[in-house]
């Protein structure tokens, strides 16, 4: 079942928790959620019994896209460990970039971030990667 926010009761004032409880009553196996607010997936996961997959929440994370990106790199390069990878552009507002940085680091790549100062997150050096302006 696919649910678009423009057709849902959220437009009539229903909260995300109300929606979560309604969905939970249908006993789904999995809920895949894409939401504009960071943390929406975490909130939903605390209210339902089934597994929740984050398909992008606000500026926080987009783990499914990062896993697909890693798979594409493996298909093309046969490995990720030891690769030098540059992520360029608007890193500050990119949840995909953030998830990619976490995942590619975990898999042993050297991650370089290329962005103008105003599009570079201040906390970027806390997650292990090199910054290039």
């Amino acid at each position, binding site marked *: 079942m696919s649910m678009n926010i423009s057709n849902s009761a959220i437009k009539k004032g229903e909260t995300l928790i109300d929606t979560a409880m309604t969905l939970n009553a249908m006993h789904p196996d999995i809920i895949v959620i894409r939401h504009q607010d960071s943390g929406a997936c975490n909130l939903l996961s605390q209210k339902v019994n089934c597994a929740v997959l984050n398909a992008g929440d606000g500026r926080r*994370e987009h783990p499914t896209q990062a896993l697909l990106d890693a*798979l594409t790199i493996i298909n093309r390069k046969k490995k990720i460990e030891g690769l030098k990878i540059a992520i360029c552009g608007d890193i500050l507002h990119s949840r995909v970039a953030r998830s990619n940085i976490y995942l590619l680091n975990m898999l042993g790549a050297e991650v370089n971030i290329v962005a103008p100062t105003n599009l570079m997150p201040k906390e970027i050096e806390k997650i292990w990667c090199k910054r290039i302006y």
Partner: protein
Amino acid sequence: MAIKTDKAIKISQKHLLGIQDLSINDVNLILDEALEFIKINQSKK
């Protein structure tokens, strides 16, 4: 109604909310399984 108990893959977390929640074993398991699914999908063409 049939009750399904088998999972395609078993990772340490119930939810997939962020990469930071996953272990390296979880990630490798997901990626290996994905590669297997690609092979199965391509073999049916």
